[in-house]
Structure formats: structure tokens, C-alpha cells
């Protein structure tokens, strides 16, 4: 997989719940997409902006758009200056996009039961992953969490792409009240999961990786760390891991990840 840096165009931007769904065409990026890879979008005016770090965003979907070829669907939560700038861009705006970046989720060779766990916007890459897994005959169970209903990603769609869906919200506005960590063990048991895929904040990933290990399942965790370059150039995104050889090392979240085996990450040393 070879990433490219391209000038793209914003085809659509619309508010859905608490998020902004963006559709972006950038030549050569969508073609190489695999679930778990991401793009880095330059914020501000390239070359003159005071904002130097690009903003990483999961690729939610890749869809053909008439006359434009494949477009990237991105889900944006406005947090700070960069994401606010992106949300305010008008349709037609030019965006510098680098991608697809990072190592994708590894797919099982056998048609085994898989549980996909996502929190908030981080559930974005799990939907195309669910499609790929179903194509391979894997029974898919989804566990989606969010602070509230407005931050729950595509729960309706989830029911179409999975055999079973569990929803938890912190305020109980939809599904069970609580955290993913409270629900995951029971979901793994019911699904008889062999592989667990997770994307979201670190405490959740840590809890899911631990639950997977206790259950005897493999886990694949997509880690979100602040990325200064997102392309592997700056060594600014350390993730402490244990290698296949049992030796502790520090690798880069953006190119050696963002997807890691849950039992390889030294979670307690992963600082934000």
C-alpha cells in the first residue's frame, strides 16, 4: 500500500447528530483503502497556515460519486481549532489529503465469530470492516458506545451489517446505560468471539484487550494518539509494545499502527 499526498475537493459536508459527515475526493487515496487505515488532512491554508500538524481522520467509507470516481467519507467531531476549521469549510473547498495511512485491521483466514467494538466517531472504520468480514463468512457482532445518542455512529446502519448489535450510552439516552467496558465481557461470551476489533479512546481499548485475553480471543486495537506528521517521519507518536520476540520496544502509532494486537501494547505505559 502506497500513500499519496493529493489536493482534494470537499464534495459534501453535512451535520448528522453531533458529527459532521464529509465527502472528499482526492486522487489515488480511496483506491487503496483498507478498513483501519486513515487520512491526514492539512488544516488551514497549505504553505501559509500557522497550524502545522495535519489532522488524522478514519476513513469511514469509500463510495463512488458520479463524475468524481471514489470519494472518501469521513466523520468529524469538532474538538479544537483544526477540526472546527474543517467543519466550516464550504463545499468545493480544496483540501490537502495524505493517505491511506497506517496498517489496517488484519482479517482472519477462517470464518470465525468476530466482535467489533467502537466508541463515538472511532466506530467509523468498523462498518467497512464488518462488510469485509461478512464477505468472508464471519458472523459479526457490533458493540457501539457513545456519551449520548447524538454521538452514536450510524446505529441504524449497524443493524443491517451485523448479526447482533449492542448499544451503550453513558447517559442512557439509547441502549444500555453505561460504558463499553461494562458490557464487553458479556458480548464476547454471547458471540463466542474468536477475534475482537476495537477502536476508540485508550482506556476503552485497554479494557477490551483485557476482556479479549480473559475470554481467549485475539484482539486488534486501533490506537488514537496525537500525530504530528501521521506519515512516520517525525517519530513523535510513541507506542510502547512488546515485540514477537518478547522484547519491549517503542514503535510509531502512525506507521507501525494504528492497529496493534491488543496483547502487544503496554497499555499502562501509553500516555496521552
Amino acid at each position, binding site marked *: 500500500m502506497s*500513500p499519496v499526498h493529493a489536493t482534494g475537493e470537499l464534495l459534501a459536508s453535512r451535520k448528522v447528530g453531533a458529527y459532521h459527515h464529509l465527502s472528499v475526493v482526492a486522487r489515488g487515496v480511496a483506491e487503496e483503502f483498507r478498513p483501519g487505515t486513515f487520512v491526514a488532512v492539512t488544516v488551514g491554508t497549505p504553505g501559509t497556515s500557522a*497550524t502545522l500538524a495535519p489532522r488524522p481522520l478514519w476513513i469511514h467509507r469509500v463510495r463512488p460519486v458520479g463524475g468524481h470516481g471514489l470519494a472518501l467519507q469521513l466523520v468529524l467531531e469538532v474538538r479544537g481549532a483544526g477540526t472546527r476549521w474543517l467543519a466550516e469549510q464550504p463545499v468545493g473547498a480544496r483540501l490537502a489529503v495524505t493517505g491511506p495511512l497506517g496498517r489496517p485491521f488484519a482479517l482472519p483466514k477462517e470464518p470465525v465469530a468476530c466482535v467489533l467494538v467502537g466508541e463515538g466517531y472511532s466506530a467509523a472504520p468498523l462498518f467497512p470492516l464488518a462488510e469485509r468480514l461478512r464477505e468472508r463468512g464471519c458472523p459479526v457482532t457490533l458493540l457501539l458506545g457513545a456519551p449520548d445518542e447524538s454521538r452514536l455512529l450510524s446505529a441504524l446502519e449497524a443493524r443491517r451489517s451485523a448479526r447482533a448489535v449492542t448499544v451503550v450510552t453513558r447517559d442512557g439516552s439509547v441502549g444500555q446505560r453505561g460504558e463499553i467496558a461494562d458490557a464487553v465481557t458479556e458480548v464476547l461470551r454471547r458471540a463466542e468471539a474468536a477475534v475482537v476489533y476495537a477502536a476508540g479512546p485508550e482506556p476503552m481499548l485497554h479494557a477490551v484487550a483485557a476482556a479479549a485475553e480473559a475470554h481467549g480471543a485475539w484482539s486488534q486495537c486501533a490506537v488514537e494518539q496525537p500525530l504530528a506528521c501521521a*506519515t512516520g517521519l517525525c517519530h513523535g507518536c510513541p507506542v510502547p509494545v512488546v515485540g514477537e520476540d518478547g522484547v519491549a520496544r517503542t514503535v510509531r502509532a502512525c506507521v507501525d499502527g494504528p492497529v496493534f494486537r491488543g496483547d502487544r501494547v503496554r497499555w499502562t505505559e501509553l500516555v496521552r
Partner: protein
Amino acid sequence: MSGPQIPGLALRNPVIIAAGCGGTGRELAAYSPLDALGAFTTRTITLNPRPGGPAPRVVETPSGLVHSTGCPNPGLEGFLATELPPLVQAGARVVVSVAAASVQEYAELVRRLGRAPGIAAVEVNLSAPDAAAHGLFDVREPFHMTSVLTAVLRELPAGIPVLAKLRPDVLRVVEAARTAVESGAVAVVVGGPQPAALPDGRAAGLSGPAVRPLALRCVTEVRAALPSLPVIGAGGIGTAADARDFLRAGATAVQVGTALLHDPTAAARLVAELASDDAALAGTAPAEPSPPVRPSRPVQINTDPSQEQPR
């Protein structure tokens, strides 16, 4: 285009990747062919492997990046085994950046490094603004620099030129440059990170457009005081116009760092834009012929980076 001349180092063009900003080279190669660049400077390599410092390592600030990576690297042996061969194979002119905890360690590092084939030059990192915090030799005074460079020059085969990357202290950079030449460096790199702090107070460096005017001042000061010393300018260079400012101020070449972190194609673009640029080409010719700067040890011109240096 005939490249800019630094004794012993035939650059293809004036665009050099700055230390620590090109990954291992493999990541950058996806966006810029390495054999089209003037040269590729590695991240700073130390004798023993280093995991680097804790997160956050790189933080945004208006028009700048504050960074304290702690020089993560696989150590000399790991570098020679896994990172140098692919760089050489990709046709890069490889400048190896080095740092050490002591003068003795510098000597051992370059003694072993000097035997490896394919190294175009060694850049001694005398500019790390967080060196002491990371257990590296903190070069603040000219006598520190003399002892490091003397040890490096004594141990390195004569065919490998030594570049000294200086602290970008506007008031003392000329003194540092003079010390570097007198110690045997063939060129100086001027305009590296300014001493700064991360939001949590850890010692760090500031790079990017924010430091460009300071870096340019450092280049002009050194150029005025030591007109025959080749100067490589660095600091916030991202566009052809930025590079031209440095070349016009007398820099022989420029290094590009932070610009690559938000546009990994920046270096390739600079190469292309400068290639069709008479003003830039004129600027790359030294104002007057450089006298031999290492008279006791004649410099061999290394044009083929894959060729092993004679010992």
C-alpha cells in the same frame, strides 16, 4: 544541474532532508524519490539504541512545532544493519547525523560508522537544545565543540567530510562556526531548533516557519564573517521563495524539516522549483573559491554514494 559544492560532498542539488524529519527514509520515499534529493540526513544516531522520550513528543504552536523526541534510534549496529543499506540502495546521498554522551563515545561511534560503505558525510549534532535532558553531551562552549570535533575527525576515515550542526544562537553563531572550521569541519549547518519548552516544561526545540528569520540572520552572520566556509541553512524553509532567501544570503544548500511533516512532498517540490531557477543556481556558487579546510588531510571527492571509502 551541477550540484552545489561542499568539499568532499557532491550534492545533487541544494535540497537536503533535515535530521529527524525524514523517518528512516523508507516513509519519505513514498512521496519523494530519495535519489532526486540533494542529500538525506538521517535522524540522529547514537552508539546504543534509544527508545526516545515520553509522549507528547511533538506539539503544535503557532507557525512552529515544539519537539523533544529524545533521539529515538536503533543504535549504531541496528542502523548499519537495517536502515543504512536501504537508503544506499535507494540512491540517497546519506548524511549520518550523530550524537553521543561523551567525547569518548563520539570517537567510538564514528570509528565504527566510518567503516560502513555508502556514507556521504557525517553531521555532528551540536545543536540539540534538549541534549542534557536526554543524557547527551551538551555542547554549549567552543572548547566542548573543539573536543568533540577533534575526536570525530581523528577517528573518521579522511574521505568522509564532517558537517557541524551549530546551535542557532544569533549572538554566538559566528564564534561557533569559527571553532567548527578550525576543528576541521568542511561546512556548518546553521539554523537548527531554537531552545524552547513543551507545555509541561520539558526542554525542547522549536522549529518551523516561526524560526525562519532567526535562522536567516544566523546564515548572514556566518557568511559575512567567514565568506569561504560553506553554510547549509535550515529553519522553517518550506517554499522555493524561502529557499531562495537563504541561497541569496549565501547558503550553499538548505535543509528542509518541519515542512515535510505537513506536506511530505515538500522536498521534491523544492527540488523541481529550484532546478528551473537561475537565481537559486547563482546563489549556490560560493562567493569565492573555498580554500581547503582540512589541509592536513586531503578530502576525496565522493561522487558515488554506494562506493566504499578508501581507508
